[in-house]
């Protein structure tokens, strides 16, 4: 570090005891093993979230919520605002990559059983963030107020509406009335830029503090081998620099996607127009959407769609509380059952997403 750098560091250190933090980070080690690569997806997800925050704020400078303004304001951003097209395309692409990266991160944690004692809260906060990410996607999809988003939101909120007792009130709450209107757009905008980011930041803070406090989870095999044989890498600067390297590559990927595949705007939503062919939700909802299509209208005495939603809800809840029913992993034993479930879910999601995409 040159003398100016040292001076600045000393100036800050004098005021906020930066040295303590550096020492803390310096003592943190990341296990090195054959599955270490998966550790990076947490960092990539964080990076993509930060990109979302930055590009989202930039979009907010020009975006106007409202039935009469939303589409036109995005059109303006795409055609008139300097680099508006780039910001919007990166925001849309980063959103999708964020969900993908978070999904990979979640499955890697599941297969590594990293959720086991003492990291139950880290898993729960991660899962809640994942649900919020889907909420971000669902609410953000409507904001351009284009035809596809309008009808996809209609279908999506309709699905919520079929749940017995609570479905209708939820649907009306989401839509701000009986139908998808400007009121729906306003509240989705509110969720997207205020409610969800607030909750997400809170959860992210807890998640990151826990990761730093508890360190990276070690694989189960480490528990059966002597500590001395475990290979590690300092978190700072080695792992963090590697993270940065990957972030640079992701940034470049985003730029390539934004330039070669700019996010389309489509046609402005028209509530009186017939629904266009091929309405599909975002890809991460596709496996559920496709499943609901295949479920028969009536199974025994229960409505097929209601049953499907209930099954997904129960499965989601069981997934959320894995650390509490998988006691075997917490005891340091390998729980193959969880592996099989995880594998089944991965295959199911991939197959149904592809089928939903193609059909």
């Amino acid at each position, binding site marked *: 570090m040159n003398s100016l750098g040292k001076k600045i560091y000393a100036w800050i250190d004098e005021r906020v005891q930066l040295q303590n933090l550096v020492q803390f980070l310096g003592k943190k080690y990341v296990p090195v093993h054959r599955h270490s690569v998966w550790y990076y997806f947490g960092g990539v997800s964080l990076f993509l979230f930060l990109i979302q925050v930055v590009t989202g704020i930039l979009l907010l400078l020009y975006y106007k919520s409202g039935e009469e303004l939303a589409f036109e304001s995005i059109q303006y951003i795409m055609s008139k605002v300097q680099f508006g*097209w780039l910001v919007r395309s990166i925001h849309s692409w980063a959103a999708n990559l964020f969900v993908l990266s978070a999904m990979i991160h979640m499955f890697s944690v599941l297969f590594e059983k990293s959720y086991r004692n003492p990291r139950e809260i880290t898993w729960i906060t991660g899962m809640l963030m994942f649900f919020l990410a889907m909420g971000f996607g669902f609410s953000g999809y409507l904001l351009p107020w284009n035809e596809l988003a309008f009808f996809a939101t209609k279908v999506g909120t309709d699905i919520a509406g079929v749940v017995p007792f609570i479905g209708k009130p939820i649907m009306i709450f989401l839509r701000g009335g009986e139908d998808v209107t400007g009121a729906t757009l306003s509240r989705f905008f509110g969720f997207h830029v205020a409610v969800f980011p607030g909750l997400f930041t809170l959860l992210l803070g807890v998640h990151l503090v826990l990761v730093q406090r508890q360190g990276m989870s070690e694989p189960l095999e480490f528990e059966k081998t002597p500590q001395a044989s475990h290979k590690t890498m*300092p978190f700072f600067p*080695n792992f963090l*620099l*590697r993270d940065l*390297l990957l972030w640079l590559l992701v940034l470049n990927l985003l730029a390539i996607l934004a*330039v070669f*595949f*700019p996010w389309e705007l489509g046609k402005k939503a028209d509530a009186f127009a017939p629904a266009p062919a091929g309405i599909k939700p975002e890809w991460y909802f596709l496996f559920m959407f496709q499943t609901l299509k295949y479920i028969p209208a009536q199974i025994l005495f229960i409505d097929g769609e209601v049953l499907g939603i209930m099954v997904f809800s129960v499965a989601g809840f069981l997934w959320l509380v894995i650390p509490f029913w998988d006691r075997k992993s917490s005891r340091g034993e390998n729980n193959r059952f969880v592996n099989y479930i995880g594998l089944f879910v991965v295959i199911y999601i991939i197959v149904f997403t592809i089928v939903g995409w193609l059909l």
Partner: protein
Amino acid sequence: MASLKTYLIISAACVSLFQLAGAQRKDQCSTCHETLGDKPTLLFAQDIHAQKGLSCADCHGGNRNSEDFEEAMNKSKGFLGVPKGDDVSKMCAGCHSNGERMKGYGSRLTTNQWETLLTSVHGKLSTTGKEHIAQCTTCHNAHGIVSVKNPVSPVYPLNAATTCSKCHANAAYMRNYNPSLPVDQLEKYRTSVHGMKNARGDAKPAECASCHGSHDIRSAGDAKSRVHAQNLPATCARCHADAAYMKGYKIPTDQYAKFTKSVHGVALLQKRDLAAPACNDCHGNHGAIPPGVESISKVCGTCHALNADLFSSSPHKKAFDERRLPECETCHGNHEIIAVTDKLLGVGPDAVCSRCHSEAENKKGFTAAQNMRGLIDSLESSKNHATALIEESEQKGMEVSEARFKLREVHQARLESRTMVHAFNEQRFREVVEKGMKTAEAVSQEGESALEEYIYRRMGLGVSTLIISVLAVSLYLFIRRLERRQAGTTRV
């Protein structure tokens, strides 16, 4: 002597038997009612049904052989009296819907009249709600019915219009069923070529049933009606395209063939555009007559109002009137009006202007036509250039929806210029064209900017990729150096 006596007795017996037989064959209904001077009975003597051997009792029931009127008209023995409402038509249908029975009378009539009447506009319920609007007797009369070919028949072509107008010219009656339907059809018909010839005793020109049908008459708005806009040209063509039938009237018979190829015919018959004109929209329907030279622009102007207005105030109006040239028809033709293209304008081989404005004789008009064509061609090429640029930009994923929207204005200017041609005023035409060209130029500029932006984006991506790659490689090398140093430190 005995043999003569026997012969006389036998002869007297035979005469008596013949007299008795004759007395029994004579219809007692007629015998009595004729004596009473009953008009229907007297008319029935001339009725085709009477000639085919039918008696009053065949429709009214009762015993035709009984001289005792109480027995002859005994309701308990089947006497029906005068049928009312739908019973009238049902009575007729009893025979007329029965093929076998009709064949027995040597009839070659169709047997679906009642069936088709029920599907017709007259087969709907009347205001009483108890019967249909029209019964067989409404048009054919009840007694004295004769063949439709008989000139005294109320449905004979020369009488049909009068028969129909009994109801259709009665405003008080018609308002019960269709208050918006005019009641002056007969009046108009008498002014038409068809009506005038009909009045002169020519049974061939169209009368009501020729176009509307007879038993199967449907409302003109009904897609199955013969006079529905899409069916009307074919209905007119049944006579007007039949050279043998039209022989003697000295008019062409290719109107229908031409119309089907025309822009109007294609729109109406192929594209099913009901706003396009059928024969009656130009010629009228009940008052059908070919439009005269002076009224053609008025007829076309009912739809092409702007063009007609511009033409009326143009210098061509006076020139056409002086030469007694039909206004629109001179350039566009009549039945075979093809879709107008810009080729019609100018002095080229397909242009119509040069038919009158030759370079040698009418230099001013010739130059104006040439200039106007040049202007509209320039607008077309500007529009095509702008469209190509916008399409290319869209294909490359650029956001040019605003420019795409502006292209509509260019298209609009092109349409406007085509209308403005009818003012035959080069200056006014130029103003419209230039407005379109200015917009086309603005659109082209936006298209070009979008394409430049497209290249700029790719170059920007290249530069940023280079910077990121340099950073990534540097970082990688730094990590490697750092870890080598760390490994060295650990080893020591």
